[in-house]
């Protein structure tokens, strides 16, 4: 599906939880003539969303479904409004990305009342929402955090640091996936007590804010041994921090004395930075793999198969060494 060539399907090792092998022919039949509404975040604000919406639409349409995408700028009120509008289209299925569990409950109740199945992606659901939803496709953010930590440690060791002060910059701290990522990160870092994260800041996914706070914390830490490593949950926040470092006269890289930068979910900015040597690595949480997994789940739901409530995708660790394998997947 979705135009991805076979070799990518094999390299994109999205370990799909406990997927039973639904064949391509079966899916085409299940999707044929079906109407699917996608309530998603907008590509205009967020390239990940844009790539995902495109890949998903493409995948579903290839199977013969009619797809309607309703995009919003991560606004809960508008997303709920769109969900209601999606319901009124009376589709066979709604693909939805929840902003959080609780705000999804009323929507899912309405969908249940209308008898329309809902496939949620990216957001781990809890409580009633988790029960109401038909299926979820999510990434293991904990594993992403572990990959991030391994990348960072690799970089720090390559640069020869015996010990190091680290700065962490998260997207939105309160989101569950951020918490999962930090938990995974810390579980690995517990084994490296010589590398201490002295500060975790919240950038709210605003790269300018990330750059500003990074440069101010670099300055403040200067008197106390400086910062040797920066980690961020997404590539473009890491790129902002690396840029701020350059402006402060630091050198992002893996040579001795360099600032080691690592990030979680890959994107063009990260690919670019890894090539340039200013970032040591990233992890895959790619829109295309997500779209493929969602397409498959949708297909199986519509085919009437028994689908697991939660499909967890496992990310790959990306470094300069294996970057070429992931360039396609990570460029969006």
């Amino acid at each position, binding site marked *: 599906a979705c135009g991805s060539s076979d070799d990518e399907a094999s390299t994109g090792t999205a370990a799909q939880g406990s997927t039973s092998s639904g064949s391509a022919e079966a899916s085409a039949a299940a999707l044929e003539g079906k109407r699917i509404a996608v309530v998603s975040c907008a590509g205009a604000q967020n390239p990940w969303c844009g790539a995902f919406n495109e890949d998903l639409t493409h995948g579903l349409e290839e199977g013969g479904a009619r797809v309607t995408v309703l995009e919003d700028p991560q606004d809960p009120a508008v997303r709920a409004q769109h969900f209601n509008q999606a319901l009124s289209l009376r589709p066979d299925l709604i693909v939805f990305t929840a902003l959080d569990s609780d705000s999804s409950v009323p929507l899912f109740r309405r969908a249940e009342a209308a008898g329309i199945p809902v496939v949620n992606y990216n957001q781990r659901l809890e409580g009633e929402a988790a029960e109401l939803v038909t299926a979820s496709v999510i990434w293991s953010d904990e594993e992403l955090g572990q990959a991030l930590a391994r990348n960072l440690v690799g970089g720090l060791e390559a640069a020869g640091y015996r010990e190091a002060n680290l700065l962490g910059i998260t997207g939105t701290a309160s989101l569950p996936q951020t918490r999962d990522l930090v938990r995974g990160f810390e579980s690995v870092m517990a084994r490296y007590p010589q590398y201490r994260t002295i500060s975790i800041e919240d950038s709210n996914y605003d790269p300018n804010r990330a750059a500003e706070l990074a440069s*101010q914390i670099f300055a*403040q830490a200067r008197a106390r041994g400086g910062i040797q490593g920066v980690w961020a949950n997404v590539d473009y926040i890491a790129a902002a921090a690396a840029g701020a470092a350059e402006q402060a006269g630091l050198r992002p890289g893996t040579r001795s004395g360099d600032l080691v930068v690592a990030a979680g979910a890959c994107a063009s900015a990260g690919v670019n930075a890894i090539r340039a040597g200013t970032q040591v690595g990233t992890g895959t949480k790619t829109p295309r793999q997500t779209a493929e997994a969602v397409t498959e789940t949708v297909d199986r739901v519509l085919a009437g198969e028994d689908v697991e409530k939660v499909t967890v995708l496992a990310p790959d660790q990306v470094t300069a060494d294996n970057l070429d394998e992931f360039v396609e997947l990570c460029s969006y």
Partner: protein
Amino acid sequence: MDARRNPGLLVPALADGGAAAAPSRWRVSSAVTLQRGVIGAGLALLLFFALTTDGFFTVANAKAIATAASLVGLVAIGQTLIMLGGSGMSLSLGMTSAVSAMAFVGLLGEGVVIALLGALVLAAVTTGIQGFVVGRWAANAVIVTIAAGLLLEGFGSWAAGHGDLTPTVDRDVYAFLGRPLLGIPFPVYAFAVAALVVQWMLRRTRDGRTLLLVGSSREAARAAALPLTRTAVFAFSIAGVCAALTGIMVAATQHHASLSIQGNYTFDSIAATLVGGTLISGGRGSVTRTLIGALVIAAVTDIALLRGYSSGVQTLVKGLLVLVAVILVRLTARR
């Protein structure tokens, strides 16, 4: 009917010489004292917090503050011109930064000079059109710029294929725009030069002085046959160029460009302009004041961050600063 039982006003209580209508010279002078007092107290407070904040008084931190102030400040220069000219404010300058940055990165394949020129021209033209509409037909600037922001966002993401743009050329070609020069970050030079040039234009060029006159009274300017349209286009397109410079330098530092580059530049630039003391209705203020406003906001934000206050508190403090500045400016205004 008895006048006592019918207390409708016979006398225009505030029609003339009333407190709100026209502050007397006494009120103005006491307000000036008040203003000095508040500014003095504010600076003392700032100094106190600065002294007690670990790591504030370092060269590195000064550079960090200067860089932050410069990026917002450049956008604020444009905001100041728009405000001085009596158009109020632009709510699309942040979006202009982002879209120009995307144009810059997208054009880098053609060479850095073409990319720079292309991005700056794009910004000057798009904001210039807004200036034309506002200057020529007296359209409401807030509404026009909200509309322009939406259009820029729509066309920007359409042209960029809803993506994050990364340069296709070697970093060394353009990275000087983000790196320090002689130890000082490049944006600081850009801001300093732009502030000097624009302030000089305001004081010494025909268009700059006309802008102040138009900002003082559009109706009088029209009756005096001053060029309303040209003046507004002048203010808006310089604003566009300044905003674009910020976007370009951010993109050159972060090595990619997307709409997220707009960040909070729109509102932060208005905040810097107002904190500097420019009159929102136009005619009074200067770029120098805005420079100070941008630095004050950056310093206060820095202190809040270093002391570990949340981003919410930082925003709150910024808002209160704006509020105090606005009140002080009003109290000392002649009208």
